[in-house]
């Protein structure tokens, strides 16, 4: 039996944040086991070695620095500006996890002050964040919030010293190579172009009428389910593309069209091929797909 690696020393530092990722993390059903393998030098909610004041005073070394929230150079924690606080802790750690879309790309908070707020490595799609030169040790877990299992996966990989294959934004491919569209229960409705006009229906695809971003969004939401039971699209609300650098988009619940034709094609699908197939699919009327799955009146 391989011996269990030593506990990882982890710092959870917050930039400008709504605490969403902290709360998401608390929903991890395997949190108990995970806490056996990590020691939080600092965490905003969980028991930990140092208070924020002590952390800022000691600026300790760590194995993993988890950063949640958007970055702004002048934003302070315990009297220390993020510019030096983040940089110092980043230099003294082995791995950095950019937790959530604000830390990764600027996210929602960037909307408030687009000029000064960014992610730690990326500012939207551009790699101009303060930790760009340290990107090799950064793992991006974008999402609003990131799924708790994405974090425990990453911590486990680090703990067992396994290489993590990443995409252009340094997101683990294991988690982000899929599209949210993959595994959605509504795929058959997408294929045959049967749409749902309302939230929360069991039937229909949310692409045309409700702006679903599933076909453009990298994420495993329909593979690693939320709360282990469901996902936005499974429960009948459109994916808003929260894992992408383009998040948040405007008019989240409408699909932009030009002359009834969606302005964006599913990733990698040429417009001509998509339109030919979609046109053909629309020509058929599949009774089973147009009916309610469960008819309340019979």
């Amino acid at each position, binding site marked *: 039996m391989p011996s269990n690696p030593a506990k990882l020393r982890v710092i959870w530092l917050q930039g400008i944040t709504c605490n969403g990722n902290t709360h998401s993390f608390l929903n991890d059903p395997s949190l108990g086991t995970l806490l056996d393998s990590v020691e939080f030098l600092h965490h905003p909610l969980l028991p930990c070695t140092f208070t924020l004041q002590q952390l800022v005073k000691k600026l300790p070394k760590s194995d993993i620095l988890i950063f949640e929230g958007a970055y702004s150079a002048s934003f302070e924690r315990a009297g220390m500006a993020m510019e030096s606080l983040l940089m110092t802790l980043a230099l003294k750690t082995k791995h950095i996890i950019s937790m959530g879309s604000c830390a990764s790309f600027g996210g929602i908070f960037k909307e408030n002050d687009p000029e000064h707020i960014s992610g730690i490595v990326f500012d939207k799609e551009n790699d101009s964040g303060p930790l760009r030169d340290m990107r090799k040790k950064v793992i991006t877990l974008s999402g609003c919030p990131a799924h708790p299992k994405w974090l425990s996966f990453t911590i486990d990989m680090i703990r067992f010293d396994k290489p993590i294959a990443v995409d252009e934004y340094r997101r683990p491919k294991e988690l982000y190579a899929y599209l949210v569209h993959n595994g959605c229960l509504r795929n058959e409705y997408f294929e045959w172009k049967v749409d749902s006009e309302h939230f929360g229906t069991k039937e229909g695809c949310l692409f045309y009428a409700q702006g679903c971003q599933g076909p453009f969004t990298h994420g495993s939401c329909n593979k690693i389910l939320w709360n282990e039971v469901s996902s936005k699209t499974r429960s009948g609300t459109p994916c808003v593309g929260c894992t992408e650098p383009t998040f948040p988009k405007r008019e989240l619940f409408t699909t932009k069209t*030009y002359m009834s034709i969606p302005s964006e094609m599913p990733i990698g699908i040429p417009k*001509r091929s998509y339109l*030919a197939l979609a046109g*053909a699919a629309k020509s*058929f009327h599949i009774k089973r797909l147009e009916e309610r799955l469960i008819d309340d009146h019979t």
Partner: protein
Amino acid sequence: MARPTKEERKVSIMTKALELFSKEGFYQTTMPSIAEKIGMSVGNLYNYFTSKEMLAKDLILYIANILGDEIRKINESPISTQEKIEAIVHMYFRIAKDRPETIEYFLRVYLSNREVFQNCCEGMICVSAFVTEMMIFFEEGVRCGELRDQDFFSAFGLFMGYLGGMVFINGENILPKPLESYEHTIAENIYYALKSR
């Protein structure tokens, strides 16, 4: 001389059948009359097309591909949407003049006998090559700001209904002037009807 391939034979049968269908109509044209026109036995004709309906369907696919290829070339040229409209109108009328049987078939056989095509050509399937290019034309026109955003079929109907109607009344010998002399004004009308305000 090399013997024509089965595909080449099919195309030559279709060309003849097209003339008959567009002149005589779908119901008047029979497999024996087509075979006679080509100079081939009816039995042999069935080696190429298993029924009159299948032949009719292959013809509409063939025509939609011709129109689709032409519009694709226009879509891919570096010209403005207004110029593309001119080019499409010109192309359509040129085909109507040089190969009148194609457009006639489209209008008088395909659109007028929908029951024939119901089982093998649901919705837009058989004309997909053509409709897809029109979708791309409209989508790009709106995207670049030249055309007004609206429902696809409202715009498609205006454009194609207009052209089809002109070719139809030309076929009825109602137009006092040759069809091509209307090209420019028609293209202009279409552009003004669709352009962004």
